[in-house]
């Protein structure tokens, strides 16, 4: 019991000592909390998106076959699909028609896709929930409603008016926000795509273990193709925010580093008053170890306070506030931007990592500069 009581005593004194340096501690604590808030927000955001990507894209086609022309993606002849369908293990082959359409008035780029369900009634489109349009230059982009007419400019400059038959649900924003689904006829009117060609082919394969074999066979049959498996799609999204991914790790590491430096300077620069206090404590019988324990508790107390508050605020920010603060970073030059109403997902392991990555350096940085003051001779207060 003695050891526990001793720690409690030291914590008592540490907290009262912190209370006497309120201003400095509050400013430092605020910065600390903000740092945690930022890092935890990034963590929550990327975890949630990765999870949604993983769950949604499990329904992506098992294999997508593109054709490369002069090293770039070109259109693929539909007849390639015949020989591919004959490969053992391939359940079905379907051509996909999709591309990008830039609307000069709203300055937005949409992804246009052919949806076979619209083929019976050309002239109608289904749009994604974020699709906005501007009727005239200078006006505001406005939300499109059902039965609205959406004007397009075809490849040869003529106008094509299509009626909005449906809007995809808001909840599908993440995967379908910028989609405009059209009939095949309208697609070919819009873009001058050869009737015998498609953008790519999607395959349904029963046994995913055979994907590599099938891919090899496809390339053997048609050396100018490039198959992309579902596995590769999933790994792409697993890795999008990966810590190896440039900006994110540099920013996070930079923030952390800057904070440690700040802490070193502010938290641990012992004022004359603090040094005197340590001298008195040593004189009345506290050992060096006790002083260092005091500094340890100081670091830990501030850390725990900041961590709890930072994480809580981060959670609110990302899952209630739709990660508002990240919009400028993520939006870039896009005009269409999803509303990020993400389903929360918290990886306890990553949270624990964040805890140790911040608490430990901060505590160490609180203790180390105090070393010299902690080891002063007990009689130093008498000598001054």
């Amino acid at each position, binding site marked *: 019991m003695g050891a526990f009581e001793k720690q409690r*005593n030291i914590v008592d004194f540490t907290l009262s000592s912190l209370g006497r340096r309120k201003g400095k501690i509050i400013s430092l604590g605020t910065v600390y909390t903000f740092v945690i808030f930022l890092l935890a927000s990034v963590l929550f955001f990327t975890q949630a998106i990765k999870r949604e990507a993983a769950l949604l894209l499990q329904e992506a086609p098992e294999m997508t076959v593109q054709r490369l022309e002069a090293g770039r993606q070109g259109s693929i002849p539909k007849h390639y699909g015949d020989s591919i369908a004959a490969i053992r293990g391939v359940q079905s082959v379907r051509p996909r028609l999709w591309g990008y359409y830039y609307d000069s008035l709203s300055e937005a780029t949409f992804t246009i896709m052919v949806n076979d369900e619209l083929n019976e009634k050309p002239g109608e489109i289904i749009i994604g929930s974020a699709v906005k349009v501007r009727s005239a230059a200078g006006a505001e982009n406005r939300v499109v409603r059902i039965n609205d007419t959406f004007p397009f400019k075809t490849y040869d400059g003529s106008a094509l008016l299509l009626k909005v038959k449906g809007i995809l649900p808001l909840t599908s924003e993440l995967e379908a926000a910028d989609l405009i689904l059209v009939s095949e006829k309208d697609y070919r009117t819009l873009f001058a795509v050869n009737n015998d060609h498609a953008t790519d082919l999607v395959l349904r394969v029963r046994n995913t273990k055979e994907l590599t074999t099938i891919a090899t066979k496809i390339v053997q049959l048609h050396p100018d193709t490039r198959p992309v498996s579902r596995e590769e799609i999933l790994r792409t999204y697993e890795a999008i925010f990966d810590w190896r991914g440039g900006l994110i790790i540099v920013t996070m590491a930079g923030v952390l580093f800057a904070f440690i430096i700040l802490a070193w300077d502010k938290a641990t620069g012992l004022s004359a008053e603090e040094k005197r206090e340590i001298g008195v404590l040593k004189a009345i019988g506290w050992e060096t170890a006790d002083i260092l324990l005091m500094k340890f508790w100081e670091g830990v107390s501030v850390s725990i306070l900041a961590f709890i508050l930072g994480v809580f605020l981060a959670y609110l920010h990302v899952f209630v506030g739709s990660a508002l603060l990240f919009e400028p970073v993520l939006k870039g030059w896009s005009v269409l931007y999803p509303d990020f109403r993400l389903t929360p997902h918290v990886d306890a392991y990553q949270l624990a990592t964040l805890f140790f990555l911040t608490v430990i350096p901060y505590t160490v940085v609180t203790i180390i500069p105090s070393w010299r003051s902690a080891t002063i001779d007990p009689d130093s207060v008498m000598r001054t």
Partner: protein
Amino acid sequence: MIRLQDIRKVFNAGKANEFVAIDQVNLAIDSEMITVLKGPSGSGKTTMLSILGCMARPTAGRIMLREREITSLPERFLTGIRRATFGFIFQQLNLIKGISALENVMLPAYPDGEKRSLLQKRATDLLTLFNLAHKASAKIEWLSGGEMQRVAIARALINSPAVIVADEPTAHLDTKLSMEFMEIMQQLKREGKTILIASHDPIVHESSIIDRIVDMRDGRVVSPEIRS
């Protein structure tokens, strides 16, 4: 109680500002007596006091506490012994501002991890002894000079030490408070404590209650006079 053998203390040894504070000191402090170290400033009184009180280590020589050699004990053990055996009253009082009188009194006992309620009771009893019970939760800054003095003494007593060490205790006190201080020391002596005071105040060394004066000059003991 405490015995010093051939004690020598040098500061900044080997450097340009090397300074011999005390040298060739042989001294025995008897228990249950009031011993006063007398001498002008620079005579080494304070250094002597800190060595006697196990707050500083001598550069050379040996110290015995209750016939047990403590010269080369590691810091951990020495600090523990010092906490249990000595109670210090500093010239500047060195109370910690911003916390209560009660907490100041309890501070020296914190590292021992004693049960809080027991410690608090002992501290409160001490404050009551000095008529300060009503000021227990008051912050130090709000106390008068005399009250702070008494809190400092109470703090020195919290671990029930055998020896009280006081460095120029009356330097900032008026005559009345100085006499009060000496009375408290007399009371403590009656209770069996050993008292060590460093002072150049005549009120202290002309007081009838002290048992011995040790004269110091230029870092040496001049004549360990015994007053009967």
